[in-house]
């Protein structure tokens, strides 16, 4: 049994399969608790997380994707390290990603994404999504069993974002094969300095070429919109800026959605009555998705770097401290969510979870993720009856096990073996 007092959340693989008891231990230490390693304060309180997310001047996103590993490339000095951070930002990992930008530069880059996933824009891609659900399900439904992640969720989410961005079909397979691991490996050996951008470096070459082509000849896809896009002040972004955003959208747009689908099906299997209820009343799907994101959301831990010494909820926070926002814990804060471990489809504050973040960095792909999961759940329920966990792979009820990717940033099922009665 892991000793929670001394555990290192960022390297301890025993906290991967079920981090929630550890989160509750941290909560018992207060909504903001100091971790014993790496100069980190962990946030399990909902209100405290919102206070931090809404104060980007004090809490920089420079380390948002990576957290406290690797160490800062400088020794923080004094009570305001804004200038130090600015001087060393380029030495940090993946700071070209929009999630890791701050201030005006972030606002500019974010604005380029803001009209990509509007309801109208998504309608144009819905037909493709619905067709794709059927194409993928056709491949295995008759067998009566599947690994939802490998057989469905990963190819589905990857192909949807590839279609939306307008990646040529011939390149899509290459992309799926080459995509590196997500950030935040626990005890892993990922060489960040080599990959620099979290396994996405190969995307730059491809996207650079696509965008250059589309500046010449627009094609009506998102990449063409990008190629023509302007910053809010009317200036034109560089191709490099656009490449970073496109590569990010591709990388971020598929893994989290695939894992959300996995989590949704795990919840269905563990709550058979709920499965029946949603099967019989599909209008409950949106509320169900928000509850799954709250209860088992794919983003487990997002980070911030305190650049100014400050106080939140009575806790003194020294400039240079990493703030680990444990969304998985904040979303089970009983001060905000009554009976937080119950899936309730009628919570008055159901949509206020932090599964998609909050504030200036709120997930821009939320509407897309929800559209993808809605289409998938509908079609899965159409085609599969009595969906159950495979006892062979996950064990008998009461003693079930699941493999999650050994990463501290995401809560990501590696596989989810299901058995069901096919509907023909």
């Amino acid at each position, binding site marked *: 049994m892991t000793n929670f007092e001394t555990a290192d959340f960022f390297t301890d693989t025993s906290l991967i399969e079920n981090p929630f008891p550890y989160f509750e231990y941290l909560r018992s230490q207060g909504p903001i608790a100091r971790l014993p390693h790496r100069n980190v304060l962990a946030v399990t309180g909902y209100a405290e997380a919102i206070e931090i997310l*809404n104060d980007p001047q004090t809490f920089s996103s420079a380390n948002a994707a990576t957290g406290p590993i690797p160490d800062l490339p400088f020794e923080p000095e004094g009570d305001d390290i804004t200038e130090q951070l600015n001087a060393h930002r380029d030495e940090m990992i993946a700071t070209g990603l929009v999630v890791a930008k701050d201030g005006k530069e972030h*606002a500019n880059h*974010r604005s380029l*994404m*803001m*009209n*990509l*996933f*509007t*309801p*109208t824009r998504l309608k144009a891609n819905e037909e493709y999504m619905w067709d794709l659900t059927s194409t993928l399900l056709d491949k295995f439904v008759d067998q009566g069993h599947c690994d939802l992640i490998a057989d469905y969720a990963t190819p589905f989410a990857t192909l949807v974002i590839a279609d939306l961005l307008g990646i040529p079909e011939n390149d899509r397979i290459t992309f799926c094969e080459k995509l590196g691991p997500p950030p935040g490996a626990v005890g892993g050996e990922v060489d960040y300095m080599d990959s620099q951008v979290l396994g996405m470096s190969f995307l730059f070459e491809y996207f650079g070429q696509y965008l250059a082509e589309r500046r010449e000849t627009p094609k009506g896809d998102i990449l063409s919109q990008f190629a023509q896009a302007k910053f*809010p*002040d009317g200036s034109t972004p560089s191709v490099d800026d656009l490449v970073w955003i496109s590569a990010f959208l591709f990388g971020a747009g598929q893994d989290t959605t695939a894992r959300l689908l996995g989590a949704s099906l795990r919840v269905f299997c563990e709550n058979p009555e709920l499965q029946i209820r949603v099967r019989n009343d599909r209008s409950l799907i949106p509320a169900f998705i928000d509850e799954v994101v709250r209860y088992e959301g794919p983003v487990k831990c997002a980070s911030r770097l305190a650049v100014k010494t400050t106080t939140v909820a009575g806790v003194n926070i020294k400039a240079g401290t990493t703030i680990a926002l444990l969304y998985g814990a904040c979303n089970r804060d009983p001060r905000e969510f009554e009976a937080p471990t119950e899936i309730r489809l009628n919570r008055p504050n159901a*949509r*206020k979870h932090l599964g*998609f*973040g*909050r*504030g*200036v*960095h*709120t*997930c*821009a792909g*939320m*509407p897309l993720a929800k559209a993808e999961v809605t289409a998938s759940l509908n079609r899965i329920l159409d085609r599969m009856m009595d969906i159950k966990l495979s006892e062979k792979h996950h064990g008998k009820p009461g003693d079930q096990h699941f493999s999650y990717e050994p990463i501290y940033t995401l809560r990501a099922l590696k596989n989810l073996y299901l058995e069901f009665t096919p509907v023909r």
Partner: protein
Amino acid sequence: MPQITITARSGEKLVVDAEVNQTLMEVIRDSSIGEMDAICGGCCSCATCHIYVDPSFISKLPPVSEDEDILLDGSNHRKLEVSRLSCQIRISDALDGFALEIAPED
């Protein structure tokens, strides 16, 4: 900088300096009035940045898009003419002196 007057749900008023090219939602969210959730972050996909605008400024605002119209229709507090999603309005010098009220929560 254009000055904007925000009226909170409590009736409290606050005058803020807004930066040109920010969205109105960002101005309200970044102000000391902590009651704007803006849960979609500004991509016109929820209605949690719903405001009532000063009628005298309507002609200076961009028209309501189809998406915005659908989302506003989903609110129980829509008031024709003055209801808008603040994420869809960008600050310009023409909005100096603009006033808005944060709509009740749905």
